[in-house]
């Protein structure tokens, strides 16, 4: 067997956000020797955010990810609230949460119908040129297909109304929002949100019919082959409900017992990260459990974030319709915590329904239309903002100088938390498809399906805790004079 045959590349991996590739290595017996999930990109936000104006950060950092810019925008805005010791007035709070739940609905919809869902809605073994949204529409029919497009549009339109733009919103400011909404816009949101609830219910019906009843999906979601016992991390509110916009960080162990519950700002004390020479992404793990390699179990510090993990750390969902579906989900698995990696899809749709319900109830609140949009600000300092991005816990941590410029910016991003678990899942799946030194190319998609469960965002993943290096740079104006000296 020559070397070429002993190494199989999937490049690029597709239907996700960002660049990634998978390298599979076979051993002399023709089995899988090892699998690597590589992220070949880096931007350096941690470096060039230094010296920027604090209030510009929500619009700068959202360029980390155009699929979930709302998550970065509001993690950033919340960090600035903390930096300026400002508590946004109830109206601004309601507007932000409204936008945020509309985003969660829209982003989860995108994953189910456009990114991860086509593997099952069209079929894991379908020709590659059909495994996409167009193939999905072919399968579910033009009528439902148009509903998919319409409701993704609703999610984006709600974001646009509150955020000023459908992608890369602009209205978040420390202590509040730059604008309100008109009565007509509020009515438009109410009717879109009501429709979103119905659409989320219909999507769950489709899930039961097309995925849960499907033999391949049924095999993947049941049994222990794709269910690594890992820690889970997510935000919960003061009642222990799933909370997308705000809350404490809760971590549970593989057996479901509480490992930690801390104020969001303290999450950085729970984790540590390592680098590997073969990827641009850093790999975090629970510091006190420790790094034991890419292995599952209670002694391995690998943890997961995102829908599956959020449903493992919560005590209830927090909205009535999604709660009913959550109980069906728990019944199916005989109680939590759920480790089946393919259950991410189901958990995501339960959250999509909950986000639609929350959007609808927020749209009914009178506070949206009345009161101040901005709170007075204190002197700038340091602050942490934490939020649940669709893909998991997202943390922005800034230190501002007395003029409100960024001295340092730490970003801990959803997909980064999941990198070790994704590597583990890929290897588990790869083991099952390598036989006698051969891999049927039609089976390689199964390996990709194992990472698509996580809905990874790899452009996001390459940003994480920076170190501290001294640096002085002079910024010169067109006339050659020093306009600014950036020091750190």
């Amino acid at each position: 067997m020559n070397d070429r045959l002993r190494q199989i590349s999937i490049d690029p991996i597709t239907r996700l956000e960002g660049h990634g590739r998978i390298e599979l290595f076979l051993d002399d017996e023709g089995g899988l020797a090892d699998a690597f999930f590589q992220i070949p990109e880096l931007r350096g936000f941690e470096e060039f955010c230094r010296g920027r104006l604090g209030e510009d950060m929500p619009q700068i950092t959202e360029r980390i990810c155009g699929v979930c810019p709302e998550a970065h925008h509001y993690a950033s805005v919340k960090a600035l609230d903390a930096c300026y010791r400002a508590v946004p007035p109830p109206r601004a709070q309601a507007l932000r949460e409204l936008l945020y739940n509309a985003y969660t609905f829209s982003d989860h919809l995108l994953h189910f119908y456009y990114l991860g869902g086509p593997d099952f809605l069209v079929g894991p073994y379908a020709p590659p040129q059909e495994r996409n949204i167009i193939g999905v529409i072919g399968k579910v029919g033009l009528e439902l297909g148009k509903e998919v497009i319409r409701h993704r549009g609703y999610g984006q339109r709600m974001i646009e109304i509150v955020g000023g733009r459908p992608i890369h919103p602009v209205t978040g400011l420390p202590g509040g929002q730059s604008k309100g909404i008109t009565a007509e816009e509020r009515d438009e949101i109410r009717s879109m949100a009501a429709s979103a609830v119905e659409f989320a219910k219909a999507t769950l019906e489709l899930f039961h019919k097309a995925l849960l009843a499907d033999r391949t999906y049924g095999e993947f979601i049941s049994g222990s082959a794709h269910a690594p016992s890992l820690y889970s991390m997510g935000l919960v509110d003061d009642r222990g409900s799933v909370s997308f916009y705000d809350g404490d960080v809760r971590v549970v162990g593989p057996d479901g017992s509480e490992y930690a519950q801390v104020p969001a700002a303290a999450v950085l004390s729970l984790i540590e990260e390592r680098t590997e020479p073969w990827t641009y992404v850093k790999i975090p793990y629970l510091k006190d459990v420790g790094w034991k390699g890419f292995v599952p179990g209670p002694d391995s510090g690998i943890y997961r974030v995102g829908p599956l993990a959020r449903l493992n750390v919560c005590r209830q969902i927090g909205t009535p319709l999604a709660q009913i579906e959550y109980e069906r989900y728990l019944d199916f698995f005989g109680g939590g915590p759920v480790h089946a990696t393919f259950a991410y899809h189901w958990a995501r749709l339960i959250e999509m329904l909950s986000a639609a319900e929350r959007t609808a109830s927020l749209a009914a609140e009178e506070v949206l239309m009345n009161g101040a949009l901005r709170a007075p600000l204190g002197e700038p300092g340091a602050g942490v903002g934490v939020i649940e991005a669709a893909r998991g816990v997202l943390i922005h941590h800034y230190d501002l100088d007395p003029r409100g410029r960024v001295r340092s910016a730490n970003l801990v991003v959803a997909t980064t938390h999941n990198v070790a678990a994704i590597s583990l899942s890929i290897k588990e799946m790869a083991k099952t498809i390598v036989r006698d030194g051969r891999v049927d190319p039609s089976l390689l998609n199964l390996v990709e399906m194992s990472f698509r469960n996580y809905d990874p965002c790899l452009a996001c993943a390459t940003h994480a805790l920076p170190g501290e290096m001294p640096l002085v740079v002079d910024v010169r104006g067109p006339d050659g004079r020093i306009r600014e000296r950036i020091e750190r």
Partner: protein
Amino acid sequence: MSKAKIGIYWAAACGGCDCSILEVNEQILDVAAGAEILLWPCAVDAKYEDLRNYRNGEIDVVLFNGAIRTAENHEMAELIRVKAKYLIAYGSCAHTGGVIGLANLSERDRIFETVYGARERWPQLESSQDGRILRLPAFLERLTPLSEVVEVDYTVPGCPPPREIVRELLSALLSGDLPPRGAIFASAKNLCEECARERTHERIQRILRPHEAEADPERCLLDQGFVCMGPATRGGCGAPCPAANMPCTGCAGPTADVADQGAAMLSTLASLVGTGEEDESQIAAEDAILAQLDDIIGTFYRFGAATSILGRRYHERSTATDQH
């Protein structure tokens, strides 16, 4: 007419450009019916191997978003250029380098130090894991826009390109009715032309930052002292940011008659602050107003640091400093 063969590719990008194509809502069904999508990593399962196997010029048009940040981005740009009849620089990063062009302010080693810490922790271009060789593409010294590495036929500005412009572009692609090569899908005029706010041409007495004061919703933001990039920025988006009480940040790049967006805006701003009087105390007062600009690069070159003259000079200077 046979179906148009199109490709969509991202280099160093955030995915917002890919999402902006979905913002056309039901028009995407026309694209599905009227075109064959040969490459779209975000949504379609075609691999690099498939791309390499296409004949030269086989893809009618590729929408290329993202900047050239790694050696892989550069290689893909060259490969796609050969495979595509028309290549479109789509979005700010491909057009002017985008926000991530701000990385050109720092040396590559500094970026790695900030992100990974000590040198022994840095990722390697080639590494061995138990004798198995893994490779990573090089992180280039400078980030560049697409047009700096290959010839570009059309440009679609914006971060991301706005919905109506994308609709116009897709209609043109589906009908085959493309404008003359070199066209830019945006307004030739600046953003102020389509902004609903009223210019009062008041002299700026104080620079205001958006978190410091609530803007009057009717009057021009610049007249109120907020640094709005509108005068130096290409229109076409309908000015949604000023409509949301936030200044334009310049994502669509410079207008047709301007080479350096930031320099053009600084000059506009200076003229709104300056009285032209040569009295020393007046000059000092005007300087004091301009000294309130706390982040020249991030404000005036938010999306254009990689293409500005300033950016390059800065880079050379920074390298020279490092050698001391």
